[in-house]
């Protein structure tokens, strides 16, 4: 009797250990790793999945998504799986430098030949391909493009302040912030939670203040972090912060609400804000409207979700088939209208997208492309973390210690190049 129960306990223990160990997917499975688990992102993914299963009816689709925190949780799980030599068949990552640690570790397969055979080298913008290429090789397939340098504002609130059109330059925007303040509205909506949204704003201010060439130089050492250009940008950043809402604890959707409820004037945020608001039932053009970030018209500060092919993927063929869907016109047009982003391909069909996204598609084809630092294009994970910390320290310290800020920014650069 007792012996039997011991056996049961032992078996249960074994079963527990076995079930927590990641089960190796059987042949004919595609295991895909994303952090798209809810809302428009999950809908978009479902669209692409349908496309994939139509083309590959014999492959079972296994979605290993880890929800939450803009991918920070997922990255943790992914890092441990890659280190343990147990990669998924494909995983999601921001395109650009964020992938560099996997590339340097030799954990990803070179996909350059896929770009040729699928003709992506022709339909993806050349500026993007240049950024994706590391030492002549491309390691990821982007599925969407978000724009980071967008100014969101509420026409009704602006009217109260006597503002009828979006400012065209950074200085004009600062002048408008003062107008908002006069009528008792906070000029700039700030989302202090977790530092990254403030860093996002700073990234835009740098770009608007020094222009795309100098801005790009920041990430390869050609523009120095203690140069006069950076100092000017920091001064403007200080001024903008001084017109921000008093609460330093908002998450970005809460800060966005300040705009849609008319409690704050301007908001610099990526265009995922638009799809968030639409899911809340707000109307583009009526409840909120947009303009290119003042001083950055003609510049498209992009970020992109992309998929990769890890070395040693259990089902390489399925992984490749997935990547082909990711880069295809049908796949991208199934995903993006739901996600609220635009397709990477220049031949995508505008009719499927809303008016903001259609305008974004036009700009995407003609604008100068620069990457978003906070979302993985210019810095790897280490540099990004350090940059967020430096901005967070500066911001919570009342935006006074410019010298300390520059020191932190230099340290972030060093952390990235380490």
């Amino acid at each position: 009797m007792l012996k039997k129960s011991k056996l049961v306990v032992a078996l249960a223990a074994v079963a527990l250990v076995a079930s927590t160990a990641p089960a190796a997917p059987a042949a004919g499975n595609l295991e895909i790793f994303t952090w798209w688990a809810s809302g428009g992102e999950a809908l978009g993914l479902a669209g692409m999945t349908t496309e994939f299963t139509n083309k590959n009816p014999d492959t079972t689709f296994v979605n290993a998504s880890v929800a939450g925190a803009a991918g920070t949780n997922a990255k943790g799980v992914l890092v441990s799986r890659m280190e343990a030599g147990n990669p998924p068949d494909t995983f999601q990552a921001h395109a650009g430098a964020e992938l560099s640690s996997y590339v340097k570790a030799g954990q990803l397969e070179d996909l350059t030949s896929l770009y040729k055979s699928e003709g992506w080298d022709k339909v993806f913008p050349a500026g993007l391909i240049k950024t994706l290429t590391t030492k002549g090789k491309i390691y990821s397939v982007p599925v969407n493009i978000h724009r980071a340098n967008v100014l969101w504002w509420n026409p009704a609130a602006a009217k109260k302040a006597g503002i009828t059109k979006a400012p065209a330059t950074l200085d004009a925007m600062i002048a408008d912030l003062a107008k908002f303040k006069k009528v008792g509205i906070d000029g700039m909506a700030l989302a202090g939670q977790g530092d990254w949204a403030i860093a996002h704003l700073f990234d835009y201010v740098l770009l608007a203040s020094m222009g795309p060439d100098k801005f790009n130089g920041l990430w390869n050492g050609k523009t120095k972090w203690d140069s006069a250009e950076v100092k000017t940008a920091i001064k403007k950043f200080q001024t903008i912060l001084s017109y921000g809402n008093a609460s330093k604890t908002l998450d970005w959707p809460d800060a966005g609400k300040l705009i849609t409820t008319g409690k704050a004037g301007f908001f610099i945020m990526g265009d995922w804000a638009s799809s968030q608001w639409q899911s809340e039932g707000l109307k583009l053009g009526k409840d909120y409207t947009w303009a290119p970030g003042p001083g950055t018209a003609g510049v498209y500060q992009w970020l992109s979700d992309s998929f990769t092919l890890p070395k040693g993927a259990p089902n390489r063929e399925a992984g490749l088939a997935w990547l082909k869907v990711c880069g295809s016109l049908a796949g991208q047009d199934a995903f993006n209208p739901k996600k609220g982003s635009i397709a990477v391909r220049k031949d995508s069909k505008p009719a499927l997208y809303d008016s903001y996204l259609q305008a974004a598609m036009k700009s995407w084809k003609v604008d100068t492309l620069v990457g978003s630092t906070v979302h993985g294009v210019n810095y790897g994970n280490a540099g990004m973390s350090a940059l967020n910390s430096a901005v967070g320290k500066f911001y919570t310290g009342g935006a006074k210690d410019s010298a300390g800020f520059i020191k932190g920014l230099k340290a972030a650069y060093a952390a990235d190049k380490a």
Partner: protein
Amino acid sequence: MASTTLKKRKKHIQNPWGGFFFVLPSIIAMAIFVYGMIGWTLKFSFSNRTSPWKRDNSFAGFARYTELLQDPEFTHAFSNLLKFTIVFMLGTMISGLIMALLLEKGIKGEGFFRSTYLYPMAISFIAMGTSWRWLMDSAKGETATGLNLIFNKMGLDFLQNSWYTSVSGSMFAMALPAIWQMSGYVMALFLAGFRGIPDDLREAARVDGASEFKIYRHILFPQLSPTFLTVLIILGHISMKVFDLIYGIASKGYVTKVLAIYMWQVIFDFQNYAKGAAIAVVILVMIAIVVIPYLIYVNKTEEAK
């Protein structure tokens, strides 16, 4: 049936190996997953494995630890943790003790108050963190929400503050939800301590003419010292490891960063495994400094018995 199990039980008591085999699985699991992992972390912390692409596991001595001392972010997280620990431990002990004193006399509806005080412990750290983030909103005056709004409405405007977003006071504010959550538990421990003291002692003291204050000061509190020690240890190690509460409120924000959050960031964001392991070891040593003397003390007193 009943008699056979009784017989078997008897046999087991006679055979000491039976007990040993019964705990063997947990001994093995502990050896691998606790001590083995500690050893592994130690080995990593002394290595050169500072990035995922340099697979360099060579011995580096104390290089990672000296790096930590020069890392302003680490010292910032360390001093944050110390501030948090001091305020959290003092606050929780004092409020827990006061609640225990209030309930100790056996007031009406004690059961109700006991569960009410204990209830915050049942809430998950993340859910609690989210609501405290809203409560501790740093906006003041007209746009105030949360606690600042309450102060505003009560005409106590001078009490409004920026909570955990102020540079000097961030960790004191952060200790507030932790105190709120844990003081009920501390109350329960103290209450159990009080109940463990025989009533005869108090009665004898009363007969001898001691005042209530003197009874507490000279009779009850000295008897509570083992409870104090237990509480100190429990709170101490909870505080050193604090992660979820702070992550729930401020995520990876700089101003409230503590060692556990920085460790997580170094390992998964920077992928600097050696340095992350070194931070883990620092946390472990800090907890060991708190816990090991206690274990020695407990062992000694048990032996004495």
